[in-house]
């Protein structure tokens, strides 16, 4: 038994060291899960694209609870994964402690800024992308009422809501914006039932376009809107195809590009803060055959013009996180 055990153990550790020597990249998905059709899935698509193009392999861990984050990061760094990419602001405080312990490992965090020499922080200007879809929502709304459903109530999601409201008001100052958050804990990222209920409530208040910025919860929002004959707006990934003809557009947040770039850069990470804004095509709105009938050529031209103005600096979209207040929306 003992001999067998040590033999097996030796074989296993050989296999482990062989894997570690290649320094495969690794990705950690936050709560909500890899297949949330939104934020985490975008990250997964980026990793998958890298693996398909390069034939390389990568490690991945899905978080099951809040308490696992530190162990997951340490385990990956300890076993030689490099770079280690993580999705979500919630890793911020943990990474701040873990990163100094592994100076030879490159970490990439999405949606949060961590100030360490071996950490590359990737953030997006979600308010700019949300402004565009807000503009489109107000144009498409017949009742002059648009809805917003956020996931967890945090400044990051309020930034989405604030940009959306500004865009809607810019298109039509009379537009009423109804905003709701699903919850105050990470469970709010994966609660499609509550998302659906909030959507029905907003539709009964007159909203006919509902924007979901809620990770996996958004699946319920899009479903409820489609069932009630209202339009919805997806987030992070291109969700137009989930209910063809019922989803006005999706606010694309190119998490997939961020992950793909991080994996491609390998151990040559730039470090510092990388801002993926409208100009860098980090955010934008999605057009494909599923929503071609919903967005007229006229509407698209207007939105493209607005986008150009934001890139030029002619329009500045207020960022909620800069001063924790929003001119267009009260929370």
């Amino acid at each position, binding site marked *: 038994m003992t001999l067998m*055990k040590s033999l*097996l*153990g030796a074989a*296993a550790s050989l296999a*482990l060291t062989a894997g570690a020597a290649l320094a495969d990249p690794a990705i950690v998905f936050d709560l909500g899960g890899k297949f949330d059709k939104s934020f985490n899935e975008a990250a997964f698509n980026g990793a998958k694209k890298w693996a398909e193009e390069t034939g390389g392999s990568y490690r991945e861990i899905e978080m*099951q609870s*809040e308490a696992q984050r530190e162990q997951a990061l340490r385990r990956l760094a*300890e076993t030689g994964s490099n770079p280690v990419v993580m999705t979500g602001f919630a890793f911020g405080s943990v990474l701040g402690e873990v990163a100094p312990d592994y100076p030879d490992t490159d970490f990439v965090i999405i949606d949060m800024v961590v100030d360490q020499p071996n950490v590359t922080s990737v953030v997006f200007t979600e308010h700019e992308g949300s402004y565009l879809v807000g503009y489109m929502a107000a144009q498409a709304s017949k009742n002059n009422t648009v809805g917003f459903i956020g996931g967890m109530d945090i400044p990051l999601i309020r930034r989405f809501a604030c940009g959306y409201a500004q865009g809607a008001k810019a298109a039509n100052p009379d537009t009423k914006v109804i905003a709701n958050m699903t919850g105050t804990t990470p469970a709010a990222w994966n609660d499609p039932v509550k998302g659906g209920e909030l959507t029905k409530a907003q539709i009964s208040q007159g909203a006919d376009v509902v924007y979901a910025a809620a990770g996996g919860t958004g699946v319920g929002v899009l479903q409820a809107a489609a069932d009630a004959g209202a339009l919805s707006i997806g987030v992070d990934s291109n969700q137009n195809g989930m209910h063809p003809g019922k989803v006005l557009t999706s606010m694309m947040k190119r998490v997939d590009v961020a992950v793909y770039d991080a994996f491609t850069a390998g151990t040559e990470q730039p470090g510092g803060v990388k801002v993926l804004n409208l100009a860098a095509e980090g955010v934008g709105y999605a057009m494909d055959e599923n929503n071609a009938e919903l967005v007229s050529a006229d509407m698209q031209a207007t939105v493209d013009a607005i986008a150009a103005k934001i890139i030029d600096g002619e329009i500045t979209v207020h960022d909620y996180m800069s001063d924790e207040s929003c001119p267009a929306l009260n929370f």
Partner: protein
Amino acid sequence: MQAMPKWADIVLIPLINLLLAFLISGLVILAIGEDPVEAVSLMIDGALGSSYGWGFTLYYATNFIFTGLAVAVAFHAALFNIGGEGQAALGGLGVALVCLMLPWPHWTIALVAASFGAALFGALWAIVPAYLQAKRGSHIVITTIMFNFIAASLLNYVLVNLLRPAGQMDPASAKFPEPTHLPTISDILNGIGIPFAERTPANVTLIIALLACVAVYFLIWRTRFGYQLRAFGKSEQAAQYAGISSVKIIMITMAISGGLAGLMAINNVMGEAERLVLNSVEGAGFIGIAVALMGRSHPFGVLLASILFGFLYQGGAELALWTSIPRDLVIVIQALVILFTGALDGMVRAPVERMFLSFKKREG
């Protein structure tokens, strides 16, 4: 009198149960197209093959010792405390308040105070269902499990609205100050010259857990209260006839049980995370039930069962990391272990007893 020797009862039967559970787990792994031998060797190597693995295995085991003892103490009084999850969560709140509210000069003093805070909060959370059982007859199984949900909601509220520092998006408390950080097992062992992998979460709480095992042993088998507790557990009517107050037994037993569950928080909140996060208990309260069942409600059995479950937890994490076997499969393995050691115990016991009897006959 006894069909089989004591060692067979304590060692042989759990071992056979365990082997059966692993055998079926192996078949499940085979069925999803993975190699069970490789999986088991990965688990063993990842959890027990290095001091790094041991650091995690012992950390999880420490959690399970506390929750296992909590369930075991209540078992002896025929009370089924399923509320370990909530009591441990509240214990975490007690630890966080102690560590954050007062400036502590040294970890030893902070540890004593935090242990007190953890036990107090855990005990208070268990006393409410105990009172409802003792005075109102509300069944303790129902009330303790419902209190788990109340505890989770309470912690949500406290972390989101009260303990979260300004400007932080993640619902977690602030980091505890430096002097409250507990030394890890590797700090202690490396300090006396024994090499042990650094950055593992097992910490000085393990020693407290072992002391708790000894204390529970003395409480149950060597004190007057322990005798009353066991008498009450065997027959409530007989105990009342002998002049034992059932209200007193229920209240005190549940307070001790809740206190032990709460003490778990000094391991995971103070020793590992060094801040209070959501869901810090990670299901350890429920694992405690399995641990107590498997350990036959004896502190030494609880210790061994805790190490086994620590191994399953850590080995399972390794499995999820290095193979395409999903982490959920580890829950299947744990469930099989619980099924065989707890529910299907009689299935193995009867044939083993018969085997021993036939041996005896041949000798006689």
